[in-house]
């Protein structure tokens, strides 16, 4: 039975529960609604909630846990001998899954019965050929052990599915029975169902916490694996990044960190003055017509996906910088460079800086401006000597937030900065960043348990810690600053 049908059955049972619950409540007072504690709908609602929610929770948890349990069992059935050279346990596991899917297809179209399957043995029949006949291609011949694992996998999955259907329906029926049985005119049905809804609301708000927990857990767990395979000292202090497929890689974070900081620095040098000046101009000088046109235009920049900026860096900015600046000056011949990525990222950050600064400048009380004008200061003197100093903490916070954005940005640097891990001062050279390497290490075909792949988690954790630190400090500053004038 598919999950979708099961879901629909649970919902249908719950709707029936609603109707029956309502009807029972009405029947218990012979149709005289005034004698009920709550409106009749609430009696139905409480049955609905008690039927659907626990059952669906069981379903969700089961779907999440079942594959992990089944695969874990089967994983231990695969011998080291089944894993041929150049292959890995994960690949064999994928074969097992494919064969088991193929067996299902054979049952359906190939005219095979359960009894045939039990008798079928990999060393006697041509498993590969038979699976091929129903359109399931297996790379190599199937060893008996793997075939047995596949049979067991299929068997366990079937059984687990059956168990799941039973457990979910049982949960639904128990909830139904419990809620339905206790309906009496005195039952405080509204309070019960409101308590239930409130619990759901609390549960939803916990998802945010769970997400953070999931992020930290997945990063720390895999990073710990990484540091078991690769010395932490080399990761943090080695200035060389040179992953090799065969092992013996140098995986030092320093060149990546250098590239990241260099690109972010250029981006901030572009974005902060432009964003800040634009915010000041729009807040203090611009006429209404200019503001209604320019402000949305700059804000549109913020809504453009980063992949668009990445492509812009790759096909427009990179070649222009190379042909008109880098090559004539003899500084480099690569169109992807720190400068390319930094400039484009700066453009991306302009609206970010300007809208944050705008909020902050507008939060400075009008009385400060009026005082300054009263003393005879010009507008620019007021801005420079009164507003900016008053807004400084907030602006620092905004810059820190922008820096954290720049450090975590991925697509612009993937397409614009290049892939060579280098520590150089020349901004027209291609360098690489932490995020670029996370992408390249995790999208390759390397085995999952190798340090070359796991290093991505260590990089991710470093990135998370850095950006989180910047955010916490920035949010603290901004919050403190806002309170100052409230």
């Amino acid at each position: 039975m598919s999950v979708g049908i099961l879901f629909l059955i649970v919902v249908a049972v719950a709707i029936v529960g609603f109707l029956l619950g309502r009807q029972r409540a009405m029947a218990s007072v012979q149709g005289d609604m005034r004698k009920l504690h709550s409106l009749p709908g609430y009696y139905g609602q409480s049955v609905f909630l008690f039927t659907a929610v626990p059952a669906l929770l069981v379903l969700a948890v089961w779907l999440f846990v079942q594959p992990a349990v089944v695969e874990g069992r089967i994983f231990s059935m695969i011998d080291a001998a089944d894993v041929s050279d150049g292959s890995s346990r994960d690949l064999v596991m994928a074969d097992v899954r494919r064969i088991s899917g193929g067996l299902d297809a054979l049952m359906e179209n190939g005219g095979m019965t359960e009894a045939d399957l039990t008798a079928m043995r990999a060393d006697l029949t041509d498993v590969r050929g038979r699976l091929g006949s129903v359109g399931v291609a297996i790379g190599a011949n199937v060893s008996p052990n793997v075939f047995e694992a596949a049979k067991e996998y299929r068997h366990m999955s079937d059984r687990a599915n059956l168990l799941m259907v039973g457990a979910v329906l049982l949960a639904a029926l128990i909830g139904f029975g419990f809620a339905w049985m206790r309906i009496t005119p005195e039952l405080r049905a509204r309070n019960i169902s409101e308590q239930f809804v409130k619990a759901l609301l609390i549960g939803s708000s916990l998802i945010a916490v769970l997400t953070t927990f999931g992020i930290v857990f997945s990063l720390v767990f895999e990073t710990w694996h990484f540091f078991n395979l690769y010395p932490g000292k080399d990761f943090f202090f080695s200035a060389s990044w040179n992953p090799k497929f065969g092992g013996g890689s140098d995986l030092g974070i320093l060149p990546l960190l250098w590239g990241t900081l260099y690109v972010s620095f250029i981006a901030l040098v572009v974005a902060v003055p432009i964003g800040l000046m634009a915010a000041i101009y729009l807040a203090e000088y611009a006429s209404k017509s200019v503001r209604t046109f320019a402000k949305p235009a700059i804000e549109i920049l913020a809504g453009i996906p980063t992949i668009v900026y990445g492509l812009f860096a790759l096909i427009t900015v990179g070649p222009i910088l190379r042909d008109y600046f880098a090559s004539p000056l003899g500084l480099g011949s690569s169109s992807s460079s720190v400068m390319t990525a930094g400039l484009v990222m700066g453009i991306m950050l302009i609206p970010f800086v300007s809208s944050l600064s705008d909020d902050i400048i507008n939060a400075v009380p009008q009385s400060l401006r009026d005082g300054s004008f009263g003393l005879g200061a010009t507008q620019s003197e007021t801005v420079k000597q009164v507003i900016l100093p008053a807004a400084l903490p907030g602006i620092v916070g905004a810059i820190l937030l922008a820096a954290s954005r720049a450090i975590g940005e991925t697509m612009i640097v993937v397409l614009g900065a290049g892939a060579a891990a280098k520590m150089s001062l020349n901004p027209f050279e291609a360098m690489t960043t932490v995020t670029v390497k996370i992408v390249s290490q995790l999208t390759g075909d390397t085995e999952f348990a190798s340090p070359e792949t796991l290093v991505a988690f260590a990089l991710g954790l470093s990135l998370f810690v850095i950006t989180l630190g910047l955010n916490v400090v920035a949010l603290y500053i901004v919050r403190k600053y806002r309170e100052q004038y409230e």
Partner: protein
Amino acid sequence: MTDLSHNAASLYAPDARTRRRNASEARFRFYGMIAVGIGVLALVVLLTSVLSNGLGAFRQTFVVLDVPLDAAKFDPSGTGDVEAMKKVTTVGYSTAIQKALVDELAAAGIDTEGMDAKDLKGLISQEAPATLRNQVLADPSLVGTTVPFYAYANGRVDGFFKGRVSMESARLDNNVSPEQLLLAQQMRDKGLLTVAFNWGFIFGPDASELRPEAAGLGVAILGSAYMMLIVLALALPIGVAASIYLEEFAPQNRWTDLIEVNISNLAAVPSIVFGILGLAIFINMSGLPQSAPIVGGLVLTLMTLPTIIISTRASLKAVPPSIRDAALGVGASKMQSIFHHVLPLAMPGILTGTIIGLAQALGETAPLLLIGMVAFVREFPDAPPAGFFEPASALPVQVYNFTQRADPAFVERASGAIIVLLVFLVIMNAIAIFLRRRFERRW
């Protein structure tokens, strides 16, 4: 005040110090204008670059052929049975197309001397036989007739008419020769080649690295649509529920403070970290399939939640307390006052925030790269819910995929894909603005 005497000059002529201050004022103002100008200019240049590079992807050069489909060849069993016709491979269709091309050229009186069959065939995309085969398998009655067939022209020929390929570049190119381009020009003059709107780019699947002319966005658009469905179905209810709790019920204590700090920090976590989360938890731990929309949808849901929660809380806060008081005053419970009165009034704001969150999620690329959406996918996923678990691509990832391919024709495809993406974003934002304008209430 002692130097008043120095200022004996006319009040109408500013002194040096005033002039300096005024100049500095004008300069400052000028810097501000420049900053705004750079921002607007950046937007204009960005859009122009994308449009000028990408509009070409929507127009495509086609070779117009009448291909006779010999019944003996394409339906050897003679029964019109599709299963039997599937045995004829693309090679068979390829020869038929080639023959049709030679005949058409002869009929149009174009001199093809000095060009062998391979050169002629090179004008047409390698994808064409498969397209024709699919067309025939979809409608077996075509066999035995002569079908008018629009075959994609080879990517280089297409590039020639779009100005990307020139005679000079063709001389250095292994894939096309200047003679072929000359022939193409003649065919164009005779009407054998035509440039038409390329529906295949929007609805067709991706094609291999060697066939840029046939690459389309169909699978990517469908994959993105599936993910948006998942995000909408999960993020909206969960986000609204969480906001209602935090805004209306949560007591002011350390625990809720922790949740709030958590949400504002989650909004600033780099998107790629969410990709790592998806890879570790959804794929490695709970064994969901790689490159499936369900995983992408879940990851994007987690990313969008903070945005939706923040905007929902703002619109709940904007509903004045008098509404709640009035509801409570006539005997509603707190839950009733919220669900019957506050929530409906906050709905336009919530929907606006949700649409903006969805638009953000639609353009997100980095996390999808990590969960395997970069894979080359040609098959359309099934209808939901089964399709949620089948491999698909996504629009922004498809852009990234195009940029990773060597053939320069893919630059045009990538920019074209961006145009499609931007069109979707504009539509979503327009809906959001419309909702805000139409339903927003000021109290």
